[in-house]
């Protein structure tokens, strides 16, 4: 028995125990420490698994769980392979840092028990999701993270006005509880779709196990392919789930509103981990569809990659443009998160569309996942610090004096540069890898939109940075935090994360190749192919050149636009009608929210009032008042037959006699 056999279990159970511990303690500090240390334990056990990355061997730790009358028994099993190990490490490490940060951020907030328990529970579920070896266990984690996300977005459930987001005034405000509900509903819509996809697959494959699914895919996929459209349906359903959880295009509308929660929540759930779950499951299912399409040769499986790529690029571009107009710092980051996840999806899609780009796309998007987790978590934490220190969620209202918050300023810039993709930060390498995969797979559209998105990314990042950290401290209002604004507990996590961005960026080339090696091994192991058709790894200078030049143009443009001319959204509208129109479109999020609102929400509301007002009421009246009414009416009629007149009574007798006589004698 090896310690690494237990590691995956310890990894996800430890935060669960931590969650229970936080419930027991009364002291807020103890709660924080309990939660963070339990996550620390997970991280350590995650680290213990790291050596297995290079073995290219899936470790499947199982125990019996659910025995159905048919199909393979579902196990309570952990699947430990390169993909899950890397994910586990990212998740547990980032979670740990964010929990440490939270001890500072949450120190004066209400509802700490709730917060810590849910954060620990979330971490546990996220780790379970990643480690699960079958769909059911995975889906349990998947739903649990959604639920924790709901609860944490609604942390300020009392809807005090200072926690409202949205606005400023011409635009509507939204209350945290509404935002939480929106997030829950939108993601759950995806979850339902995903569950039906999973069930659809089970009906044909009779198993939930990822490994068995892959190994037996030729048989059941062929069976499934016999009814055309079914594979496509299962793909669409699964990807709807992905879109919901990862805030991708059709179901991306919830993430901006999810920013109503406290900053650590946004950092952990809505930037670093939960929204990556979608990417994870796409990566997990990648070999399955890859195998089906390229090796078994079922054409329908290609849709998987096409849809993933399409969703990715659409989201990346749409949300990046939305970020340009956003006024809340966390919303900008949220848009940016969606956009970056779009990159990851794009990479995975491109990886499947062409065999040449497979390794590059896959490892690129994984690398991007890693680097995004690092810099976005750091960014959110600094955003939290900014909001905490200025007391405003808007970038245009108040800003920090960078002279007084030098460390934050520095770390934020590191992360932002990584986000923009400036060399030598980690974002540069990963984004380039994704773009390279797009180009390699011949998807020019993907590539060009990706570049365009990089351009927009640079615009909004610089805009944000300019607004947040202004030298002229005229608007800075510390709100009582005028001294010692940078506490070590707050700054250290940000520093570690952005430092890691920098380090990975510096070691970028090596890191990139390391990832390629790992995932090459992983994919060839998963697909059981000794001679894997490995394409030439793109070493062209075209990609870095083009991306760097795009970024350069963008930064110059944004410098002039935002810094020099100090374009605010007000004078923007005044100046240029085209920009004004664009601004309007972006500000209204391409009218997608409004469209959903009018199509789905309104229709549900009108159907429900129609059903209640017309159908139900009329049925109710008919059956519960009408039928008894008929009986009462009949009762009245029958009672009026009881005249009390003896003559009439005798007449009845005569009639009865006559009728009986006639019937009996005739009939």
């Amino acid at each position, binding site marked *: 028995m090896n310690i690494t056999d237990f590691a995956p279990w310890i990894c996800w159970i430890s935060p669960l125990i931590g969650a229970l511990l936080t419930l027991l303690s009364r002291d807020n500090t103890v709660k924080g420490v309990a939660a963070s240390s339990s996550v620390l334990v997970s991280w350590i056990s995650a680290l213990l698994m790291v050596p297995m990355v290079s073995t290219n061997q899936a470790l499947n730790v199982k125990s019996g769980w659910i025995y159905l009358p048919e199909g393979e028994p579902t196990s309570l099993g952990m699947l430990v392979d390169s993909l899950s190990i890397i994910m586990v490490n990212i998740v547990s490490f980032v979670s740990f840092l964010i929990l440490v940060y939270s001890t500072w951020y949450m120190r004066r907030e209400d509802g700490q028990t709730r917060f810590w328990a849910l954060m620990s529970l979330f971490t546990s579920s996220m780790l379970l999701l990643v480690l699960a070896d079958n769909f059911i266990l995975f889906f349990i984690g998947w739903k649990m993270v959604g639920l924790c996300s709901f609860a944490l977005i609604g942390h300020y459930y009392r809807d005090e006005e200072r926690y409202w987001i949205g606005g400023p005034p011409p635009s509507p405000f939204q209350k945290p509880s509404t935002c939480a509900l929106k997030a829950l509903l939108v993601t759950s819509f995806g979850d339902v779709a995903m569950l039906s996809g999973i069930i659809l697959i089970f009906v044909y494959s009779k198993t939930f196990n990822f490994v068995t699914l892959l190994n037996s895919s030729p048989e059941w996929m062929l069976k499934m392919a016999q009814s055309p459209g079914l594979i496509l349906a299962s793909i669409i359903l699964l990807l709807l789930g992905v879109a919901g959880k990862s805030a991708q295009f059709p179901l991306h509308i919830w993430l901006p509103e999810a920013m109503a929660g406290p900053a650590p929540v946004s950092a952990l759930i809505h930037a670093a981990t939960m929204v990556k779950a979608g990417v994870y499951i796409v990566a997990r299912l990648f070999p399955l569809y890859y195998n089906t399409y390229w090796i078994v040769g079922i054409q329908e499986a290609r849709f998987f990659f096409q849809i993933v790529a399409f969703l990715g690029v659409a989201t990346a571009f749409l949300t990046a443009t939305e970020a340009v107009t956003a006024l809340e710092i966390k919303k900008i980051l949220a848009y940016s998160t969606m956009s970056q996840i779009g990159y990851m999806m794009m990479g995975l899609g491109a990886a499947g569309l062409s065999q040449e780009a497979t390794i590059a796309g896959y490892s690129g998007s994984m690398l991007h996942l890693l680097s995004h987790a690092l810099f976005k978590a750091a960014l959110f934490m600094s955003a939290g610090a900014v909001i905490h220190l200025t007391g405003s969620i808007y970038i245009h209202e108040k800003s920090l004096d960078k002279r007084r918050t030098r460390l934050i300023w520095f770390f934020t810039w590191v992360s932002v540069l990584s986000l923009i993709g400036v060399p030598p930060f980690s974002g540069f390498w990963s984004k380039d890898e994704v773009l390279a995969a797009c180009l390699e797979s011949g998807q020019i559209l993907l590539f060009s939109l990706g570049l365009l998105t990089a351009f927009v990314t640079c615009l909004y990042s610089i805009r944000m940075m300019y607004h947040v950290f202004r030298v002229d401290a005229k608007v800075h209002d510390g709100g009582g935090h005028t001294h010692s604004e940078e506490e070590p507990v707050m700054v250290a996590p940000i520093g570690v994360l952005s430092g890691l961005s920098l380090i990975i960026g510096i070691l970028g080339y090596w890191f990139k190749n390391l990832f390629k090696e790992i995932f090459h091994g992983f994919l060839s192991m998963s697909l059981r192919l000794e001679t894997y058709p490995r394409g030439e790894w793109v070493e062209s200078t075209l990609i870095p050149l083009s991306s760097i030049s795009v970024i350069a143009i963008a930064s110059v443009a944004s410098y002039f636009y935002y810094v020099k001319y100090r374009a605010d959204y007000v004078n923007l509208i005044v100046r240029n009608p085209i920009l004004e129109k664009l601004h309007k479109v972006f500000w209204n999020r391409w009218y997608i929210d409004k469209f959903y609102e009018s199509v789905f929400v309104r229709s549900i509301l009108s159907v429900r009032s129609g059903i209640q007002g017309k159908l139900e009421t009329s049925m109710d009246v008919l059956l519960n008042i009408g039928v*008894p009414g008929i*009986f*009462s009416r*009949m*009762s*009245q009629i*029958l*009672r009026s*037959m*009881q005249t*009390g007149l*003896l003559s*009439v*009574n*005798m007449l*009845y*007798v005569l*009639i*009865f*006699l006559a009728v*009986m*006589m006639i*019937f*009996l*004698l005739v009939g």
Partner: protein
Amino acid sequence: MFTPSLIIIFAFSIVMPFIKFIVSTHKIHLACNILSIIGFSSALIIFSLDILEKIRLVLQNILPSSNPYGIISAFDSSEILIFLVANSLGLLTSIYSLKYMERDSGLPIYYSLLFLNVAGILGLASSYDFFTLFVFWELMCVSSYMLVAFRKSESESIEAGIKYTIMSSAGSATILFGLTLIYTVTGTLNFQGVASALKAISFNPLIYVALVFLLVGFGIKTALFPLHTWLPDAYMAAPSSISAFMSGIVTVTGLYAMIRSFSVLSYAVDIHSIWLISVLSVLNMFFGNIAALLQDDLKRMLAYSSIAHVGYMLIGVSVWTLPGITASLLHLFNHAFIKCVSFFCAGAFVYRLGTRKLAEMHGVGRVMPLTTSALIISLLSSIGMPPLNGFISKLYLFLASMNSGMLWLGLSLVINSAISAGYYLRIIRVLMAPKSENMEKMKEAPIQIVVPIYAATVFIIFFGLYPDPVFSLAQSAASHILSLGEG
């Protein structure tokens, strides 16, 4: 030849009026009452001793053979069932009357009439001749006329009595006319003779006419729709003890007599081909239940419910098979106790509150919990709630109708029990409601009223939980009735 128990009953009925010469005026009621209790009890005891062997046989033969409808033993009398019901109801009514009738005068006559009534029923049950049947029938009728109109100073009572008497005696005349027609066809009125004569002759329409006349005549007493019109008035206006007694046994004796005569006539007429009877049964159910829905007078509501119950019993008659008749007799038996309790309780409310109006009974359950719970049990049994006896007989009626392939009869039974729940529950609701102000000074009914109520309630529960004895009784009675006139 009269049975000893019948002689006892007669004897008591004759003795009773003379008691006032012996006992002083203010004790006369108690004395009558005790005497009548002694009378009924002794009749019961002697009867039981008389038929102990038969009862033992019945109970031994509980175990059904492989054929559940097989005739168990050709029992030589169907009177046991009717006797038990009539006599126990008589006993209960006498006990009940002790307190209930305390304000009335002329009680020796009252008890005497009660005895006469029971005597009529008993004689009717044990007669093997149409005319004997008719004579006892008239005995029963005449005594019941006087019982209904017993409170002669009340106009309601008199009015109801007149309507009842005129309709019922018109019915009696009709029966007599029917008998003459039977005599016309067969030349005899003896069951056996009629049966053998009918076997010999071919089709004769007169026999159908006779059947109709008997149906109408007995039907008036049985309250077939639309011949029922006297019934709500009579039950409402009669003293509650008499309502209970009449509803329990007098009315359904008409049905019993009808079954008996039809059984004899069935040698010439195929009874179960007369689908009109099943139509009548459905009409009765629906009429009784629907008309009861809006009543605001408790006793009148119960009276309508009796009409509905007659409809249920008619199901068994209309299918005219052994299970059918068994079911009818079973329901007759169970219904007697159910209605007895219901009317007793209604009487207890009248006794305490002085009103029959439901609207004035709000919250009576709070002050008279014992009476109320008995009433609720009887009403639930009326609806057909297991494990009370009403359920057993309704179930068996249903089984019987199904056995003859008349599912629609069974279904209308089900629908009717749902409709009937409408007004039974209304009663329950009123009783359980919060106390109204006039209830403050009320208290539980006196023990002399509660005891007979609970004695009958015990039957309701007991025969629901353990229906076998009455079941075997009903079955042997039915098989006997169906074989009336044979050899």
